[in-house]
């Protein structure tokens, strides 16, 4: 797999990151060298081996269904750039 200009632009757009030409070039190079390095793993035969989603062998911890009243609104809204009557206020998103 090779990262080209189109791919880097798409990744940047999906991540809501703005890149100038110089930065795009740098990232293309960086990502390609990372991919090349990871590519070495292809030398290992992984036929019939399920992908591993986690290296820990422990079991997913679960909690009981108990609700804790936090009445959090002041704390939660503390860092909001804009708010109104307990709501976050953000630039209009239509749809």
């Amino acid at each position, binding site marked *: 797999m090779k990262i080209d200009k189109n791919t880097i632009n798409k990744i940047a757009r999906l991540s809501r990151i703005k890149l100038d030409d110089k930065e795009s070039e740098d990232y293309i190079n960086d990502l390609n060298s990372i991919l090349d390095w990871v590519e070495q793993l292809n030398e290992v035969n992984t036929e019939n081996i399920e992908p591993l989603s986690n290296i820990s062998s422990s079991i997913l911890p679960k*909690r009981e269904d108990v*609700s804790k*009243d936090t009445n959090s609104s002041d704390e939660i809204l503390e860092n909001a750039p804009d708010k109104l009557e307990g*709501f976050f206020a953000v630039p209009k998103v239509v749809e």
Partner: protein
Amino acid sequence: MNNLIKGEKHDWEMVIGLEIHAQVKSNSKLFSSSSTKFGSSPNSQVSLVDAAMPGMLPVINKYCVEQAVKTGVGLNAKINNYSVFDRKNYFYADLPQGYQISQYKYPIVGEGKVTIDFKDGTSKDIRIVRLHLEQDAGKSLHDQNPSKTYVDLNRSGVALMEIVSEPDIRTPDEAGMYISKIRSILMYLDTCDGNMQEGSLRADVNISVRKPGDEYGTRCEIKNLNSIKFIKQAINYEAKRQIEILESGGSIEQNTMLFNTSTGKTRPMRNKEEAHDYRYFPDPDLLPLEISKEEIGKIKSSIPELPDELKNKFIETYKLSNYDASVLTAEKQTSDYFNETINSDSELKNHAKIVVNWITSELFSLLNKNNQDLNNSPVSPENLGQLIKLISTNEISGKIAKDVLEDMFSSGKTARQIVDEKGLQQVTDQGEIAKVIDEVIADNPKMVEQYLAGKAKLLGFFVGQAMKLTKGKANPKMLNDILKQKLNKKN
């Protein structure tokens, strides 16, 4: 049954699949301990996990997992011992994490099916592809301010079950019946409250049209419909739109649509750029979810009677028609109410059909008129049972019973109390009825003459007069019989 739509050139068939989002009934959210209560003040039920503060980690709610398994069993589906949580990545103001935790490749529940019943007695299976657990997003209010969107994160992180059907549905009515059936099953299982108005149950509809027998056409998805009426309207509009395009030589562009509930029209969502690139990957914060056979067995044994089983039981035990039985079992509260009523007196088992009628027509219409629900009906099942027993033993007439029910509804008194207080017992004493009839005949000599001259319709007049004198309490059949006897004797 003809399910086709007439087009200009030939008939068309709709192909419909539903994705239902059902909010899991639980006290706390899927991955945090915040409350799931509906209607609280904005952002008052948001933990640091729900607000996606850096460093916060999700811990799964055991009960929500059990609820999903329970639902899977109710949908006759395969429960997967192993499932994985993935991140579905997208940016939106009401999604603080920047991704939704969902299940992609390995859902908790696999293939299943539900059966829908038609009025003509036939039925059809709709296959389920899968059910998976995921987080709900927050709520955005767009119409409060011209330049701002307001965001409330109370719903953020609440557990949802997404139930995906195969495209087995062919008409808007089938779609409505399918979602009603799912809702009914969820409510019997108590895994979702089924409240569509509050958004606890909503659906995305996938629809395409084709010439019967052809391959599937290109589909469009209509997002976020929260009533059965809107689902049917949206399907009808969208099918017509697609047929018009195809018949005029165009082709359908796969698209995500929104339904405008005030105009009844669908329109494409504007922002479709990269819309389907969610870059799913396993959530590194969560280990795979494993459920043992023993746990599944334990949940299976806790499953209550479901609507289909109950329906068959009612048909068998009480000899009810398929239709009556399906009306009774469509909602759990109705079947519970019926059970409590019919079990309140051993006599009533022989009058099951009357019990059904009094619940589904008389009581329902009173509840409707007063905007009330069977759950908080002012008339308890025991009291309704008592009323029906008074009818079945001929103590009061059916007509009087309707007034008594209204009185019970508004005063909260029992049927017995009202009948005794107002002296409403039916008059079944031959002599007493005969006396009243003699009075009526004596008071209306002209009418009697006309009746005897052949104006048979006048019988109703005499019945009415006699009923008036007995304040409606005379046994109607006895009144009729004696009246005819007496009049004919005059001849």
